């Protein structure tokens, strides 16, 4: 709900139209604010909630109308009662659908990660502010598939998942999200539009065919598969976080607890991926190839850095490094 109500209270009765225009202006501001992008958290009030019968609801309405006409015509009182009872159920369901959204707070919209062309997952965190449980809340994005719905227990929170289609790398605005419910019987749909004022970075699409990584001095087949090429050093107790494939199963069985193989790598390969090295006619093609290289280097567990001209990413490895490299590629240019 907008808080614009609490502002100015003017005492110029002689100003004539001024208070009216002022009120109009405030209303317009509120209207734009209600419909423009908003930062979560954002609570849905009755002014943000729309409700209309679903197609199925219209059909039921038609059926009820027929039942009404028939019962009236034959003065069939129980038929009439049935008609009114079912209409009452329908009207109740309308109120319930509305109340199901009223007072739901969109606490956060957390975008996931995706390469261009993939679906980007969004997690929408909902909270109940009215102390009553909600059922069957569904988030939908224009053009996207409807994700599964969720219940929201009273005074608790729940996550809804949607995914948005991506086409290009780079920053993009989050689309308007339609939060809707057809609870309880699907005759009415209450919905509210929510436009989070947030941006999300879409990673570039990795090229399908990229030239092999140019590693220093060595040919590719020699330096394949980091683990096998490394020297076996010994066993140590397994610690949380060790990859599963490092577990020495046979030895662990003998010792009754998990042991992990330890490797030493005397000298780690270090490469720098340069945008200027990447072949390609356009910048996008080259970025695409760079992306593939980053993924490849990450897969091989190499130390790698980026040189993109204006932005550089110092050498490193691991998940966080990969993400910062991809982010740099996504935001480049």
């Amino acid at each position, binding site marked *: 709900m907008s808080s614009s109500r609490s502002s100015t209270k003017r005492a110029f009765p002689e100003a004539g139209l001024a208070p009216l225009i002022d009120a109009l202006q405030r209303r317009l501001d509120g209207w734009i604010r209600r419909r423009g992008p908003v930062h979560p958290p954002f609570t849905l009030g009755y002014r943000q909630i729309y409700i209309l019968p679903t197609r*199925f609801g219209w*059909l*039921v309405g038609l*059926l009820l109308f027929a*039942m009404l*006409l*028939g*019962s*009236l*015509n*034959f*003065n*069939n*009182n*129980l*038929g*009439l*009662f*049935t*008609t*009114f*009872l*079912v*209409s*009452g*159920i329908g*009207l*109740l*369901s309308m*109120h*319930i659908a509305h*109340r199901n959204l009223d007072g739901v707070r969109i606490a956060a919209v957390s975008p996931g990660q995706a390469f261009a062309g993939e679906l980007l997952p969004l997690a929408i965190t909902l909270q109940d502010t009215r102390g*009553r*449980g909600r*059922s*069957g*809340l*569904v988030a939908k994005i224009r053009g996207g598939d*409807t994700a*599964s*719905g*969720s*219940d929201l*227990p*009273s005074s608790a929170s729940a996550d809804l998942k949607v995914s948005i289609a991506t086409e290009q790398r780079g920053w993009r605005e989050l689309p308007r999200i339609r939060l809707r419910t*057809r*609870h*309880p*019987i*699907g005759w009415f749909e209450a919905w509210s539009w929510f436009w989070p004022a947030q941006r999300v970075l879409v990673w570039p699409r990795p090229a399908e065919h990229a030239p092999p990584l140019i590693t220093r001095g060595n040919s590719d087949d020699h330096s394949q598969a980091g683990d096998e090429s490394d020297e076996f050093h010994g066993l140590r107790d397994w610690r949380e976080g060790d990859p599963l494939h490092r577990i020495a199963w046979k030895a662990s069985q003998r010792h009754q607890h998990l042991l992990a193989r330890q490797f030493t790598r005397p000298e780690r390969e270090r490469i720098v991926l340069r945008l200027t090295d990447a072949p390609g006619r356009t910048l996008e093609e080259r970025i695409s190839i760079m992306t593939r290289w980053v993924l490849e280097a990450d897969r091989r567990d190499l130390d790698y850095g980026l040189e993109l001209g204006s932005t550089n990413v110092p050498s490193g490895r691991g998940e966080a490094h990969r993400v910062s490299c991809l982010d740099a590629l996504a935001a480049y240019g």
Partner: protein
Amino acid sequence: MNQTLSSPTVLLVVAAFLVAALPHLTAMPGWLALAIVGAAVWRALIALLDLRRPGWLVRSALTFGGLALVILHYGTFWGRRAATVLLCVMVAAKLSEMFRLRDARVVATLGYFLIATQFLFSQQLLLFGYLLVGCALVTAALVRIQRDADEISPPADDGAPDGIRVARLARDGTMLMLMAIPFALVMFTLFPRLGSPLWGMPENALDGRTGLSDEMSPGTIANLFADDSPAFRAEFDGLVPPRDQLYWRGPVLWRFDGRTWSRLFYSNRAPERTPRPNDGAFAYSVQLEPSERRWLFALDYPVGAPADARLSADFELIRKRPVTTLMSYDVISQPDFRDAPELQQTLRRIALHLPDSSNPRTRQRAEELRRRYPDDEALIDAVLAWFNQEEFFYSLETVPLGRHGADEFLFDLRVGYCEYYASAFVVLMRAAGIPARIVTGYQGGLWQPSDGYLLVRQSDAHAWAEVWLEGRGWTRVDPTAAVSPTRIDQGARSALSDGAGWFGAEWLYQLRNQYDRLQNLWNKSILGFDAQRQRDFLARIGLDDLPTGARAAVLVALAAIVLVPLVFLAQGLARLVRKTDRLDRGWQRLRRRLQRAGVQPRSGETPLELAARSTDRLTNADELITLTEKYCRLKYGPATAIEEFDRFEAESAAWRPSRLNQSPLKQS
């Protein structure tokens, strides 16, 4: 959107369909009902056991097979029964291809329609229960379908017994339905009714189970005797006629072809003169059950016809349209009236006509009587005395008559009921030269003293005779009364043998009489509520002279007033039932008691911290800690049996803090 149905949903939809179709199933031929139930069970089994789905060939075979069966049996799709049976068959066929949400929705919604169509056949009180249960189940099915559409899985198996889990499925629907009842009542009372129908009713709604027909041959009323269902109820304003005057006049039959008595078309003209009511007249209102016939029944002699009916020359009341729903009408009857002081020659000829060369023995008997009793009245008395003194018996168990029906009955069989006696008597009268005719209708009825109405059942159907006497006009003679006075005093039931089984048991009969009192109340207050009653009601609450727009506004306002608080109530109720809320309420109660005992909860404190902190204030803090641990386990831990919640609720309600070192100083 998800398009697949979960198996609990399928079961609920199938159950809702079966309940909605139940009265229809009992009314259709058994094999068809079995086929429909079979299709429903099959669909349920597919869902339960994950069987293979039927292919399109099986599905279309089911659909067209069902269509063929209906048309074979009913010969038409037109008419209420055939149409509703067809609807049941089609929905059952639809079940076999109900694998998408949309189909399930269609099936469930048609459940409402099936329920409404049942009331075209009967609106008995018992069916109100069917209405409520059916609507609740259909609504529950719709709720489940929507849950499936939103891909919300059914509540996890929390170890509750199956019965409880099934009940929970139906709970939401029942709640919605209950909440809608007040709204429905307001609409029912205030929604404008039609004074006259927009279009007519299709015929043949009662599956051939009808009241009196307009023909009679001995044996036709017999099927009515076993039918204890009400024909009509009458309420008298003031005077109630004595029992032997309770002859409810129906069709008057003149023509006789040797076997069957039928009406005279000429009777349809208006009467030449009508009785004028005086102090001895009876005013009463009749609530007539649907009969598919146009006959209205009145005591002798109605002074006029109710609206949309007319009075025939034989003082029959004939309605313009068949009576297809419960209807009520007011009549005034004047018993003291001379019907046709003069008899036209043509009518006299018809009233004396007998088929040639039939019933020779009866004719011979009539001639003997005529010779002995030249006076008509003396002759009639002699015949009645003959019936009374010789070996004539009144019984419902008799045999059909042949070509010389009157002969066979009067001289050989001598066992029969009203139709046999009336028919033979009229033949005898005609043979003796006395103009005579048969009147069919009902006789007597059960007086319900506490509610002051007379219940006339189908089994009270009766046939008697009227003879035309010089100076007296048409005069009623009931030969059955001469044979079996109890028939007139106690009704046809007295003739039913005791071997009628449990159905005829006396206590059951009494129970049914009691039930009929409820039914009568129901008929009067709910079913009899029509445009006229609505106007009366509105006049009483002062809303009658409002223009239509204002009345609509009142309607909407009232509906809103009724509906809106209900939504809040509904949610409140729903919360009562939700177990997590029960948990929280228990916990809040503990917190309040702690607060009162001086342990103030701090913000950001976990329940366990709070409980631990209370140890230096309370002596029984260890109990509190146990309870708090239980609360946390139930709230945040894995799913637990519902009994655990109950136990927590009980224990938390029972726990009281007992303070440590309660010194009087601190208390002040």
